[in-house]
């Protein structure tokens, strides 16, 4: 342990990041792994419009639970999954349930009042706090031994090209929604982009910054704020590039199919490409936290590949009595579950480069949704299905809670990632601390 630590510090002093160490030392990574703690990873996967409760929640609790038809794709991972029922998004305030369901899901905090009007309730703006994935990523980035190139990666699949509270799941801070990357080619470029570009940018950024500084003097105080913010982004970019330049690329870029267009009918293909890139980014240790956002709150994917012409959101409004629509909704949700299963499979078959087991042994996927149920728009009983052993929870069971605020689960996730925060989001809702009974 000591030896490994001092080696790392030495290299860091030379300006070489922790991620690069195995390559610099030209050691088989297993040699380090014995000394280093395991690399925990977290993926949060989102699908929209609520689920069909009778076809989702198991009738049993504990280890004897049976998978209902939406969840059948997870059969191979039954012993590594954990279903949490009875967890509710209790954040209130502005915005309709779809908006709050989305914007408060990972932030656990109210939306700001704003000018975006939903189908009901008051208008609202963005969430007033950062999301748990960003909180955890920020913590990891603050620890030299847990730092990665990106900290977190935000993957989108079929998210419409517009920014509003329905399309944004991840927040870097209050009023700071983060756009997911929908295009696998752009993601590929981000992960493995040309070093040349970075070099060119690096050589001009200080001048851009001084240019911004110069013009600030010519404008009013209110307008200055925008330029100051712009300047901080330029500075952050400079720092990122600096770090980048020092990190040798440890993994070869994956081959992905060329020319796949970003449209509704290509969702199955895009999903697979994005998941493959996600797994690659973990292998390369580009990030240890990722989100995978499939469409958006009120997402209206037309799953023609399942023989369903109507949009998902439209169908999700149909009453329980319409069995034909409910059957379609089951199919749609099972398709989302298949994406989860594919991700689990890819993680399961990929050895963890740090040496201990497979990626799934060190990764937990959390599958969630902005609503409990589509036609009632309830924020109670939000689906939370966990797969994999990254968080060290006791798996292979279904647990039922008594309507507890979801903030407590968010806190428990941070704790499991080694970040023991006391509250997250709304303080009142966090007051009972991390959710118990998980380990």
């Amino acid at each position, binding site marked *: 342990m000591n030896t490994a630590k001092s080696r790392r510090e030495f290299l860091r002093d030379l300006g070489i990041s922790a991620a690069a160490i195995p390559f610099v030392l030209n050691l088989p990574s297993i040699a380090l792994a014995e000394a280093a703690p395991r690399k925990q990873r977290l993926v949060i996967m989102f699908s929209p419009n609520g689920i069909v409760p009778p076809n989702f929640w198991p009738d049993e609790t504990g280890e004897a639970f049976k998978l209902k038809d939406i969840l059948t794709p997870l059969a191979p991972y039954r012993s590594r999954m954990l279903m949490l029922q009875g967890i509710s998004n209790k954040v209130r305030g502005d915005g309709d349930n779809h908006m709050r369901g989305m914007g408060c899901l990972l932030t656990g905090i109210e939306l700001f009042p704003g000018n975006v009007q939903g189908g*009901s309730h008051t208008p609202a703006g963005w969430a007033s706090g950062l999301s748990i994935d960003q909180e955890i990523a920020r913590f990891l980035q603050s620890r030299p031994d847990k730092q990665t190139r990106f900290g977190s990666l935000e993957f989108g699949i079929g998210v419409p090209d517009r920014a509003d509270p329905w399309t944004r799941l991840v927040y870097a801070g209050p009023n700071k929604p983060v756009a997911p990357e929908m295009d696998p080619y752009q993601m590929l470029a981000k992960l493995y982009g040309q070093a040349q570009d970075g070099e060119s940018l690096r050589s001009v950024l200080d001048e851009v910054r001084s240019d911004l500084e110069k*013009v600030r003097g010519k404008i009013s105080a209110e307008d200055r704020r*925008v330029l100051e913010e712009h300047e901080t982004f330029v500075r952050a970019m400079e720092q990122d590039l600096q770090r980048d330049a020092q990190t040798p690329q440890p993994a070869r870029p994956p081959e992905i199919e060329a020319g796949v267009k970003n449209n509704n009918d290509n969702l199955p293909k895009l999903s697979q490409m994005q998941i493959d890139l996600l797994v690659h980014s973990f292998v390369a240790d580009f990030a240890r936290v990722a989100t995978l956002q499939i469409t958006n709150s009120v997402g209206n994917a037309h799953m023609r590949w399942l023989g369903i012409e109507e949009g998902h959101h439209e169908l999700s409004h149909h009453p329980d009595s319409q069995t034909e629509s409910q059957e379609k909704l089951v199919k749609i949700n099972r398709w989302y579950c298949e994406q989860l299963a594919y991700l689990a499979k890819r993680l399961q078959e990929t050895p963890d480069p740090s040496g201990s087991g497979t990626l799934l042994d060190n990764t937990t996927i959390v599958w969630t949704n902005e609503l409990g149920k589509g036609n009632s728009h309830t924020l109670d009983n939000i689906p939370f299905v966990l797969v994999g052993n990254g968080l060290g929870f006791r798996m292979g069971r279904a647990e039922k809670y008594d309507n507890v605020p979801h903030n407590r689960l968010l806190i428990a996730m941070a704790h499991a990632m080694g970040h023991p925060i006391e509250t997250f989001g709304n303080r009142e809702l966090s007051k009972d601390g991390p959710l118990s009974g998980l380990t």
Partner: protein
Amino acid sequence: MLKKTHLVYLPLIGVLGSVAMLHAADQPKSGEQIYQEQCARCHGAQGEGVKEEYSQPLQRRHSLDELRKIIDETMPADHPEACVGEDANRVAQFVFDTIYVRNDSLRPRVELSRLTVRQYANSVTDLLGGFLGQKWPDDKRGLQARYFKEHGFGGDKLAFERTDAKVEFDFADKSPDPEKIGSEEFAIRWQGGVIAEETGEYEFIVRTENGTRLWVNDPEKPLVDASVRSGDEKDHRGSIRLIAGRVYYLRLEYFKFKDKTASVALEWQTPRRARQTIPERNLTPGRFPYCFVLQSPFPPDDSSMGYERGTAVSAEWNAAQAKAALEVARFVVSSADRLAGTKEDAPDRAARWKDLCYRFAERAFRRPLDAEQRAACVDRHWEGKDPQTAMRNTILVTLMSPQFLYPDLGSGECDDFTVAARLAIALWDSLPDDALREAAANGQLRSEDQVSAQVRRMLQDPRTKTKVRSFFHKWLPMERLADISRDKERFPGFDPLVVADLRTSLDLFLDEVAWGGHSDFRQLLLADDLFLNDRLSKFYASEPINGPAFQKVKVSSVQRAGILTHPCLMTGLAYYNASSPIHRGVFLARSVLGRTLKAPPIAVSPIDEGVNPDMTTRERVSSQTSPPVCQSCHGMINALGFTLESYDAVGRFRELEKGRKVDATGSYRTLAGEETRFENARQLAEYLANSPEVHRAFVQQLFQYMVAQPVNAYGVDRLDQFTDRFTQSQFQIPPLLVDILTVSALHKHSKENSS
């Protein structure tokens, strides 16, 4: 009156209230007193708003008369009878004289804005267009076609030339012209430009069993290369991103050689329309230069105010603009010789390249460079660097500079160059052209007359038409037509091609109203003709039309009235299998009448038709929105939306729904409280066309879309002035644009700091 009010109010306000009342009985209360007692609870002691009650500050939005009426009839919201008559008048006077004045300082200001996504893309296209050459199409349509006697394109084999309206031929085993060409082998080259009406990914498809190559935009590199035939594949595809309102180089080469049969069609799938043969109106003969189209994506702009604006920056945007700058720099470096008009072995090559850098920065900054800028942007990078690196860094610094990214930054003063920059951004989403740059350099953008003359010139440019059309698309919620599908059993024949034609039909109508010889906003609402082609005339059962070209057809003025009843909009504002009076009513209230609608107080999902299959849509909607809590808004929404009930979910006119006569009666009550009843859509249209509320709402939305700033940031009375002049001009749209552009371009922005 006063007494009666208090009697009603007394039990409600309890003991405290009755003490106040005793005092009031002697002496009438002042407007301020009443305000503090009855209004401040929700509006705040200074009219600043109260969170969770009425959070918006009270700002100058109504005339004194309007205020009186609103207070008299609707305030306080929970007991409208508690403040009426003289009390209401006094409160209105107080709000008007004191609160409004106080809150005038909260008036929105013109905010510093970066280029929006659209503005960035258009700016770099035109920036490089200045060096690549730019050409706009004339009125000629179709493609120039050269027919050759053999399967090659040698000049001596040319048989004849002509113009073809489109490329869609089935020669079978015959010759295109038996008198001039044999049937065994021949070749055809079509050349011209293709006009893109939307921004996004286009797929071009050449459908043929013979050999073909297709070039789009780039004359050097074919987009489709299928000169070797292989297998049975008849569709040869290539994708390319194009931006709207521009014309792109196009060349299609096609030949028959050793094949039994011959046929060829040039088709496309545009970002929002179904696959079809490229229509004649999108093809033009002539030769067009390469047009730089930015590929790097940007995060979408904030458009929550109804227009895209660049008043916020984010880390994603910063990364996107850096990537875009890199993309442009890569292009400039790789084409520098061509852009600089030099050659690899020319002795003055480096000097030419450097000169290109100065000219590039000058266009990008929309003004001549001062000595400091010349040094920082260009000279510095040329010291001791190879020309490629120097050029790349110059382009990067230029495009990442605030002088390029914030078009109104200028020199800090509103000078001629600032005016030119504003005109180009507002009308074209782009940079000033040569004529504007020249006018600015000569100090000819100072007076209203000078600026108006420039605007009139600029209106003729296709880029203006593109922007105005995109305004209409935002105003009419055209995005609702994206990926639309309808119940196939109920609406047989309603396929993606009908949707594509509907879009075209509406666009042709909008262009005609905006730019036709008799531009008149009212015609948008009143016109009793539709643009139809064969497919639409069949589906909408009008008199038959031959061919895919659109013709203007008179329709029954009872059945149709302008955009309101246009099947494109009626389809967009409907569900999978039924009309939607609520969507239609909300559109009429918000977009057409400019009314503010409160948020629905409770979450409601539409009742499914299956629940009570005998109910008409009107009955279903009425029953679901019948609770009093819904009626405060749905009273207005439904009464407007129901007038369009004669149009089903695909916009067909109907007299019956479920075997019962459609009830399309409705009504509207103005802000001032005047109520009008309508028997049908035509009567509604007649009313709206002459409604000052509608004119004002249109002017406001057009202003804000073009200028991307709130209109009241340009003066409290500005909107009224524009609306008055619009009315005086008999509602012509081009003079309104001239007015809006002249005023906003010459506006002196306040630089005072308001704490």
